[in-house]
């Protein structure tokens, strides 16, 4: 059973040493849809905060590699105030991810950057995903993505998970990012 209520967090860390992508972000920014787009599995979009603490796992193929993809409960900050955030942080900090996708609400950039900066401070391999970019554009916002990448020194992708826009580019960035990190390690 893929979806189980109240899955124990201790079970959250898998034992194998495979490649891993962890998806983080505050509630209600379309994390689960990004998860679905990457894994192809239909995950239930648990929209709103406070219903259940759930952890979804799936598999994605990116650039010929198989990745385990973990969708975490919503988190606002690395300093947890709720059980959801505690669970999310444990996964993030104990699973040694090859890439951390911070899914953010593009129209709320300033507030979202607080978590991005924390992830970068913790030296996690962050890719910032500016999701729901369509809504931001409808509100008349324009984000200079190359400039944002230079400021953060981390890859940034603009996506719209409901239509799938930008998801292929995201795959490309993940592949590029992980292989560069691997080169650096050897």
């Amino acid at each position: 059973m893929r979806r189980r209520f109240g899955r124990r967090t201790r079970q959250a860390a898998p034992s194998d040493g495979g490649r891993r992508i962890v998806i983080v972000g505050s509630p209600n920014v379309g994390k689960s849809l990004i998860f679905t787009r990457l894994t192809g599995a239909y995950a239930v979009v648990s929209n709103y905060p406070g219903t259940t603490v759930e952890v979804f796992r799936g598999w994605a193929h990116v650039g010929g590699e198989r990745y385990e993809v973990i969708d975490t409960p919503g988190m606002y900050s690395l300093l947890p105030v709720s059980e959801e955030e505690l669970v999310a942080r444990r996964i993030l900090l104990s699973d040694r991810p090859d890439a951390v996708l911070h899914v953010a609400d593009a129209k709320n950039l300033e507030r979202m950057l607080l978590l991005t900066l924390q992830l970068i401070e913790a030296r996690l391999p962050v890719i910032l995903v500016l999701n729901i970019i369509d809504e931001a554009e409808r509100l008349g916002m324009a984000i200079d993505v190359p400039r944002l990448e230079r400021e953060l020194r981390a890859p940034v992708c603009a996506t719209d998970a409901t239509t799938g826009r930008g998801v292929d580019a995201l795959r490309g960035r993940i592949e590029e990012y992980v292989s560069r990190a691997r080169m650096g390690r050897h």
Partner: protein
Amino acid sequence: MYHVPGWDAIEASLDRIESLLARPYGMSGRAVALLLLQGDDEIAGIVGAAEPEALEKIRPIVAEAQARYDDPLPYIIAVRRQEEASRITRAVLSRGAAPRVGFAERLSRIMMNPLTGIPLVLLILYLGLYKFVGGFGAGVLVDLVEDAVFVRRVNPWTAALAERLLPWESARALIAGDYGIVTLGVRYAVAIILPIVATFFIAFAVIEDSGYLPRLAMLIDRLFKAIGLTGRAVIPMVLGLGCDTMATLVTRTLPTVRERLISTILLALAIPCSAQLGVILSLLDGHPLGLWVWVGVMGGVFILVGALSSRVLPGEAPSFYMEIPPLRLPRPANVLIKTYSRVRWYFLEIFPVFILASVVIWAGQMTGLFDRGVALLRHPVRWIGLPDDAAVAFLFGFFRRDYGAAGLFDIKRAGLLTGRQIVVACTTLALFLPCVAQFLITVRERGLRTAVALSAFVFVFSFSVGFLLNKVLVFWAVPL
């Protein structure tokens, strides 16, 4: 690598802390150092367990860094980070016209304004719970499945098949007797519980996906503060109206242990689940005043017990904050998949309990233990003014409360209960011990001691309330 400019002193402390950490923690030393500097208890615990001597050296570094600032370090760090976020945002974001207040936003304000929001809550409860779950699920669907499938087909077939294949009377009783696995266990699970729970989960998923729950939480926060909870607890409470077992699991999302415990108590005692609600509503059908008495007593108990536990249990009053997401139209596919996965979870969790209950009752009857239990329960049942037959229903109530309530239904049909007795029985049973599944989850979430103490309290409390209610109704000669 990026670092927030102007961190000098904090940066230096971080470097010192990082250099003291010798063990690997599955995350970068930098991340550990940052969390230690911000006073994170969980990380301090982990480091303290792995290398206590390092933690001893780190503590004064943190204290020294803190002494440089008047405000707590997490605040100082967050403010610096915010400045950086603002700077980056200004550099990369260009804005067009300000958005106007749209329809969704206007509707949202209507939901949050108490003058319009409270009538709306009542309307949603009436339509969603009473009409859709009570009327359609517990009424139309249950009748359909029970009559068309079980009474007409499954039960006669099973009886005939058992007759032909099983030569022993006791084995036949296990499968097809009054409390048999098929005739009772499967029938209750499939014909009564499933339609009610499925309709409830549909209604809940629609409400959940629309983004209504945080608005309800915001409306009810002040009221819930009186019972030691915050508005956030409204989510497990509403879910409890569907399934208390699932709701007990969900109490985990509440921020403090105290809130989780109070919610667990209230779920065990004063929140009837949808299966139970369905049976109780049909029991009270034709007794409108009785229904109001029942609602009043349950509401009173909810507030009284909540207020008492919040006084008795140690801990600070919690603070409430919650994001109010934009309202959205629920997507049918999402609602269906959510409902499906919840019903499946429910069924897998509950179905074995039903089968087990049938087996235990059967074994009890074979060995005579069941009769002894019924005989024991007859005393408290008499105290609250019910006929002896009701003791059987209460014994069933140990397995599932709605099981007991359904047992009462049979007695009512036989014309053995007066209006007063129905109201007293419904109230006592609704307050009575939660089902076995909920008990097991309570053990898992809150520990065995808490679960046992809670059950003992609920047992005594429910009969006491039943006793008092009966006395009051008799004394005032309330015409029910």
